């Protein structure tokens, strides 16, 4: 049976998997957008993505977990005094 998606032209591996694809109701369900990242040929490396996610959280959490500098307590005092006068 000819493969209407044209995937069989690629190589032996693709031809074998094409049989699988044909069993699905529509070819649109196999578009790249429906596949998890790891199965996409050109998607980002999951290991790199994971490392980036970790570093992003670290960038944020390192600062969020620091004690609040005194200047902000001082600022609050000034703001409250200002209100008291107003």
């Amino acid at each position: 049976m000819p493969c209407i998606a044209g995937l069989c032209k690629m190589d032996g591996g693709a031809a074998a998997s094409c049989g699988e694809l044909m069993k699905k109701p529509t070819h649109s369900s196999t578009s790249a957008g429906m596949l998890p990242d790891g199965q996409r040929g050109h998607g980002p490396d999951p290991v790199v993505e994971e490392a980036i996610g970790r570093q992003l959280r670290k960038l944020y959490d390192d600062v969020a977990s620091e004690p609040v500098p005194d200047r902000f307590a001082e600022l609050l005092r000034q703001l409250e005094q200002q209100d008291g006068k107003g």
Partner: protein
Amino acid sequence: MAVSQQLRDGLIGNIPSLRAFAYSLCGNPTRADDLVQETMVKAWANFSSFQEGTNLRAWLFTILRNEFYSQMRKKGREVEDADGMIAERQAVLGNQESHIELEELKQALNQLPDDQREAIILVGASGMAYEEAAAICGVAVGTMKSRVSRARKRLAEMLQRDEFELAV
């Protein structure tokens, strides 16, 4: 108008997140704290327009974000950050690998378009839900999702390439 104790406590409680958000956005610790200070002053002056019971963090983040972009329009970001990054980069030479990785991430973040940078910081770094991040940036949830996804892809491309260049 006097600021309620609840709002005052809410503001204090949000200072650590505001500092982290500001630092992630601008990459400069002093400037980040200046941004937080401006945000607190503006918040204090405008608490009368805040609806109690709604999301205070999102309201404060929105003020900080607007302040950041308004300063950026006035002062520009490029020159100042380039200097800061060179200094920091020299400071970390010879340090632990993780520090260098963090510097690389900061440089990569700096190269993202503004809308993608703020999206990945809010969702990927602070762990905020798409809905809250979308409200802060004034866009639809779908738009926020696509910005985060593009930012992730772009960061991975930049950092993957760095890794490759370091290896050869």
